[in-house]
């Protein structure tokens, strides 16, 4: 096919009404970068637009979607053709009025023939000047590489990047966080917990047992608390409060068991686990949102990876606390 006579079939839409009309785009001259758009209309004579290549906006190629070329008519555009007063499905157009109306309205030429458009761009603008993104998106080898690279980067971020970042932030934030989380126990006291029902001598015994060890970890501001209102449990809040429930104290068979658990909880405090977990949770969510773009179709799907990763992080924390 000789480039000079390349014809591309498509449709023309004038942006004033929703009527779609067949049209044909032709290159008139490669050197002068000029094209002609012939618009065929069944009820009137054809319109002919003589266009300059540089006044066209050619959409980048995207898969196999129809290619859109838009342009505006400026005063210099030559619109030839007879019978401008043609009736277009009920919209009367006076000869002069039509030309004035069209100047600020975007004109559209749409075609399915992506390859021909690419050739046209290549002919006038030079080879290789179009569709870098499309080339990336069609080259299967590149796609495989992109997929593997993305998986590797994301895996690295999840397994190394996020935990490390959370660790650094948590340690830096130490003082600030202690203050913020200090109120947590008050909140729990208002909602869930009741004062401990254990005997005074029992409480004194546990305190005597544990407190010497707490003193050697003063930087964590540990404070022993006893509560009732929950089944056997022992946990540490970031502010330093260690809470032992009545059921737990009763359940502990001997002093060593009790101490072991307290130490485990101290471990959580030392390694700032709760803070890190909270940070990691938010980072994972951010990552998922970031990667899937702004699609929020099924929120269940985005919550699931966050949940799974949170569970796996927790296990690591538990092991670390045992140290």
């Amino acid at each position: 096919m000789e480039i000079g006579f390349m014809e591309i079939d498509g449709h023309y839409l004038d942006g004033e009404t929703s009527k779609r009309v067949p049209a044909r785009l032709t290159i008139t001259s490669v050197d002068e970068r000029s094209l002609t758009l012939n618009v065929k209309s069944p009820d009137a004579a054809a319109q002919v637009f003589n266009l300059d290549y540089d006044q066209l906006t050619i959409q980048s190629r995207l898969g196999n979607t129809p290619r859109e070329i838009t342009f505006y008519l400026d005063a210099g555009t030559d619109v030839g053709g007879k019978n401008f007063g043609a009736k277009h499905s009920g919209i009367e157009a006076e000869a002069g009025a039509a030309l004035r109306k069209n100047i600020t309205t975007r004109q559209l030429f749409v075609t399915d023939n992506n390859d021909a458009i690419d050739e046209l761009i290549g002919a006038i603008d030079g080879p290789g000047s179009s569709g870098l993104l499309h080339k990336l998106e069609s080259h299967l080898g590149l796609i495989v590489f992109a997929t593997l690279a993305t998986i590797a980067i994301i895996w690295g971020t999840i397994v190394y990047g996020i935990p490390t970042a959370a660790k650094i932030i948590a340690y830096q934030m130490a003082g600030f966080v202690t203050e913020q989380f200090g109120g947590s126990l008050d909140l729990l006291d208002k909602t869930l917990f009741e004062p401990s029902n254990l005997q005074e001598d029992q409480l004194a015994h546990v305190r005597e047992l544990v407190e010497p060890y707490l003193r050697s970890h003063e930087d964590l501001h540990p404070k022993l608390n006893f509560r009732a209102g929950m089944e056997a449990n022992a946990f540490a809040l970031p502010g330093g409060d260690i809470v032992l429930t009545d059921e737990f104290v009763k359940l502990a068979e001997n002093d060593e068991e009790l101490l072991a658990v307290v130490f485990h909880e101290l471990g959580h405090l030392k390694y700032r686990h709760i803070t890190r977990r909270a940070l990691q949770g938010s980072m994972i969510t951010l990552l998922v949102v970031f990667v899937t773009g702004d699609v929020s179709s099924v929120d269940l799907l985005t919550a699931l990876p966050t949940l799974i990763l949170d569970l796996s992080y927790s296990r690591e924390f538990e092991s670390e606390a045992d140290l």
Partner: protein
Amino acid sequence: MEGNSSFEAGEGSSSSRELSFDFKGVGLEYFKIWIVNVLLTILTLGIYSAWAKVRSHRYFYSNLYLDGSNFRYLAEPLTILKGRIIAVAALIAYSVISSASPTAGVVLAVILVLAIPYFVNQALAFNHRMSAYKNIQFRFKSSYGEAFMVLYIWPLLGVLTLGILYPMAILKLSQYTVRNSAYGTTNFDFKATYRDYGIIFLICLAWILGLVVIAGIISFLAPQLESFVVIPGMLIYFGLFIYFTVASVNLFYRSTVLDTHEFKADLTLGAYARVLLTNMFLIIITLGLYFPAAKVRMTNYIASCVTMRAKGSLDNFAAAEKENISALGEEFGQVFDFGI
């Protein structure tokens, strides 16, 4: 080359035609676009995300056909990028200010709450204007007051009346989105009633109650199976989600009217459930890589169920006046998560 059947058929002014929406996207084709989007977004630390969004929207719009013509997404990546940068800066400023001074944070939060109806209007207006069919752009125009009512007051009433007015809240929201939308100079109308939504609501309640009763009976008769109560729980959640989506999408389309033209959707519980569940399964076993193909598959299914009954010619719609809406509303919506 596509046939020009719209031409001849369009001239018959009293004829009524059933036009189907066709989605021509292909999973693998979109996956390639999607994976390049993801990789480039990561490599540019998020800046490419504006281009990614445009490419993604363009793919879904341009592959959707009605009556031989496809839709178009007109937004420019730079506009979206500007909006995003401003929105993220605002978010950071808000976080910093509210952690430094809680009172200032509360004041800012109140201002944000009051500003949301304005941003939602802006976001919808921007998105509509960036959508075109046959080179005529869509429009959205609403008042602050209406947005405020629809976003805050009606849902609040729904909760205060223990759910009785909740279907009304959903109806008002749909009316707000549809009746304020226009194709060119022609407004859409929305014909559903409170009763339509009320019926859906009641069926959902019945579904929940039914399964709760079954779960109760099971755990009463066979206490050792109590851990299996989780299964009715999941059935409730999925069944509810599937029923509600199918019923409300079908209701939405059959209530929407444009001039003399009507729409219809016939999603079915079985087919929708099948698409949704196989999508979820495939996404999980491919560790998320199936996600773009799942989106294509779902869009394909829904498009295949929606039809337009056109009475008369579709060629007579006229374009509306030009206006300039910034992308700020839409991007604020994304960052602060308005999710309409």
